[in-house]
Each structure stands twice: as structure tokens, then as C-alpha cells.
């Protein structure tokens, strides 16, 4: 322990140590380094959570109508939406985020204080994660809509509701409930995949973790820093899953099997 304290204080040791192979053993001093940077990591956690929320929201706004169009839309429209979905689902997410960030002429925004993020990078990451999530969410909703028995629409139509009213009041409320498990899955995937924003340098958790252990003299802290952010990801997914399960229970149909 004394040894580590000395290391931190002696520049020459720092240089020597950076040149030696990375020491993977967990060390108290490295944990102290993580703890000392809690606010920096907290800001990264906030970025990760914000990016998850904006991406999922964009994914829902794009995916729900897309799923409905695939079921109810005219042939051409439904075909176009479906093709776009196939392309998005067939592109690696890292490729997509790099393509959008460096390939699209996005406006240059400034950066946000404290969070220390480049807004343009945040927008790129939101577009990539959001559109990709929309492509998957559309399949969750499409499946849920198609799983609703045709008799439900017929019954609504036979009391005089228009097809539109029947879809809105009878199909969608049931389809959304059935989508919840799929949506929960999607939530977890997007949350974890926010880490690909690392590829465009957005200051989310993973980027910040790297920024920390690349600091001179902290090469030994790789394991500690990564373990710390792993724990943060785990807590976020765990809490989210539990919350969504509660939502599912709250809105499930009494006596129903879903």
C-alpha cells in the first residue's frame, strides 16, 4: 500500500511503470483512483442513461408506426418500411454509428458543461441506436399486433366501430401489453449498446473508463475501472428490468395468461 502511494508521488516510477506490462492484480490504490473519480464516472452514467432514453424513445416513435404499417399499410408503403428495417437490422451497430457520425452532414453543436459531451456525437449515437432499435421494436409490435385474434376486430366492427376505431381501441391496447416483454429485452440491449458510442468518442461510461486508465500512471487501474463500470451497467439493467416487470404486472389483464 505504501508502495502505491510512493508510485503516485514519484514521476520517474510512473514512467517506468507505464512501460511494464499491465498489472492485472486488483490494487487498493487503483480502487482509490476509481473512487476519486466518482463524479467523472457519474457524469458518464448520466450520459449513458440519457442516451438510452433518447434512443429508445426514437426507437419507439419509429418502431411502433413501422410495425403497424407492416401489418395494415398498403403494399408499397409496407414494403418500403419492411426493406428499411431489414437494412438496419443487417448493419453492425458500430458501422452504423460511425457512418452516421462521420458520413452525414450533421450540424455542429457545442458541448454541454459538466457532462462534457459533444452534442453532435450524442445526436449521431441517438440516431444510430434509435433507428436500429426502431427496426427491432417494429418487429416486436408487428408480432404483437398480428397475435391479436381477428375475432376482436370483427366484434368491434359488428357493434359499428370503424376499422380505425377498432384498431385504436381494441387491437393497440392489447398489442402494447403483449409487446412489453419484447420491449423490456430491447431496453436492456440498447442500454448496453450505448457503449458503442465509444467509437465516436462520446463521453459515456466506456469512453470515460478508457480516459481514466490511459492517464499517465494509472495503467494498472484497467481492471478496477472496467469492473466499476461493469457494476454500474449491471445495476442499471437490473433496476430497469425489475421496474419494467412491475409495469407489466400492473398493466396485465386480470385472469389473462400474458
Amino acid at each position, binding site marked *: 500500500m505504501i508502495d502505491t502511494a510512493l508510485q503516485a508521488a514519484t514521476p520517474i516510477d510512473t514512467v517506468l511503470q507505464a512501460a511494464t506490462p499491465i498489472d492485472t492484480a486488483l490494487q487498493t490504490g487503483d480502487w482509490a483512483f476509481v473512487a476519486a473519480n466518482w463524479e467523472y464516472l457519474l457524469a458518464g452514467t448520466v450520459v449513458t442513461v440519457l442516451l438510452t432514453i433518447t434512443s429508445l424513445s426514437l426507437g419507439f416513435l419509429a418502431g411502433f408506426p413501422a410495425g403497424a404499417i407492416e401489418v395494415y399499410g398498403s403494399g408499397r408503403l409496407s414494403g418500403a418500411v419492411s426493406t428499411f428495417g431489414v437494412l438496419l437490422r443487417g448493419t453492425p451497430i458500430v458501422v452504423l454509428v460511425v457512418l452516421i457520425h462521420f458520413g452525414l452532414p450533421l450540424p455542429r453543436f457545442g458541448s454541454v458543461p459538466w457532462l462534457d459531451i459533444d452534442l453532435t456525437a450524442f445526436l449521431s449515437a441517438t440516431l444510430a441506436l434509435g433507428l436500429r432499435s426502431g427496426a427491432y421494436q417494429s418487429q416486436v409490435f408487428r408480432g404483437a399486433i398480428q397475435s391479436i385474434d381477428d375475432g376482436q376486430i370483427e*366484434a368491434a366492427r359488428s357493434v359499428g*366501430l370503424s376499422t380505425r376505431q377498432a384498431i385504436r381501441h381494441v387491437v393497440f391496447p392489447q398489442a402494447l401489453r403483449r409487446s412489453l416483454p419484447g420491449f423490456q429485452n430491447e431496453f436492456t440491449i440498447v442500454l448496453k449498446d450505448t457503449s458503442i458510442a465509444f467509437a465516436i468518442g462520446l463521453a459515456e461510461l466506456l469512453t470515460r473508463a478508457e480516459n481514466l486508465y490511459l492517464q499517465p500512471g494509472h495503467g494498472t487501474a484497467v481492471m478496477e475501472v472496467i469492473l466499476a463500470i461493469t457494476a454500474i451497467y449491471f445495476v442499471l439493467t437490473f433496476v430497469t428490468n425489475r421496474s419494467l416487470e412491475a409495469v407489466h404486472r400492473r398493466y396485465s389483464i386480470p385472469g*389473462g395468461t400474458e
Partner: protein
Amino acid sequence: MSLLRFEDVSKSYGDEEVLHDVTFELDAGDVEVIVGPSGSGKSTLLRCVNRLTEIDGGAIYLDGADVHAMDENALRRRVGMVFQDFNLFAHRTARGNVTLGLTEVLGLSEREAAERADQYLQRVGVADQADSYPAELSGGQKQRVGIARALAMDPDLMLFDEPTSALDPELVGEVLGVMRDLADDGMTMLAVTHEMGFARSVASRLTFLENGRIVERGSPERLFEQPDHDRTREFLGELTDLHR
């Protein structure tokens, strides 16, 4: 004037003709029971009335007006339908099943709709289940809610598509009881059912349909006792044996 009139109605699915020149009429207050083997076109005939299925030839008149000239939602407001598989809205309570049409189609307020729904649930004997969801109800209760949902729209005519076929035998009686009460109250009904006891005691007319054609139509007594066609005797005999 007749309340419902079929005039040379035909309907095909591809090459298969499911209804062939079907002609008959129903006066207000009549209870018409349709029987026939599976695939004879019974359900299609019912579904043509409220245009869940569109006909290919002939015409159907409701109270003198060609149903094809009517707005289909306006038509369906006047024709109630009860399904074999109930088709209750799974996400709404018994009361909610009845109120949906009242608020969305008739424009009643939520409160008015709930009051009216409760009256009709009372009428079919499931008032105590108003807050239950379909999955919490027995088959007989579900079908009675289905009847209340259709009745609450105050239709001129009720269509019943094998309303007891999906029920356990001990639950059939409660649904037939409700239908009997309806008939006694003067509701005009067109029912596809193989409940011969109901047909004999309640129906004003019985129609035997086979291969999309009306083989024979008349009072239940006549069709049971002295049918014109051997095929009618044979089919009704089988049905009666089955339900003994």
C-alpha cells in the same frame, strides 16, 4: 313490410359457391333458426347481413333499404351479432365490453354508457360480474356479456352464430334462457344453432341449408313431423339424436 329480406343472394369464395340464390324474409319479431351441416353456408349467410362478408349477387334489404347502399357502420349499429367464440374484448371488463360501442359509436358519455351497460348486464344476469375481465368469466357468462354488448346498441335485429357451440353442456342452458327471454320480448332473431329444443320451442321458422341452398323452410313442427324432403328428415333426425 318484412324487416329482413334476402333476394337471390349468392356468394362464392373462388370457384366454391357457398350461397346459391338464397331467398327468404323475416318479419319483425320473428325468430328464425338456421340449421345445416358444416360448410353449408350458415355462418356466411349471417355475416352477409351485417356485411362482415360481402355478397356477389342478389340483394339484402333491412327494413326495405338495400344494405349495400348503407354506410356499413350505420348498418352494424342496427344489427347485433353474437359469436360462437364470444370475441369479448380481452382487455376490457364485462362493463367495458358493453360501453365501447356506446361511447365510440353512439357518443354516450362514459357515465351514461356505464349505466346503460349495467342495465343490460343485469338483463342477461351477469350484473355481479360487471368488473370482471373475460378471462375471469365462465363460458356461459362470457356469452351473456356478448349478448349484452350487442343488445345495448338497441339493434333492430340480432344475429346469433352458433352461440352455444363452444360451451360446456352444463352452461348451454343459461345462454339459451337469455335468448328465449329475448324472443319473448319480441326481438327479431336470426340464429344458427343446433339446439333443437330451442328451435322447436322458440323458433317461428326453421330453415335447413345445405350446399349453399335452402333445402326446406317452414315451421319447426312441420319440418320435424312432415318434411317435404327425405334429406331434411335425415338431418334433423341426426341432430335430435345427438342432442338427446
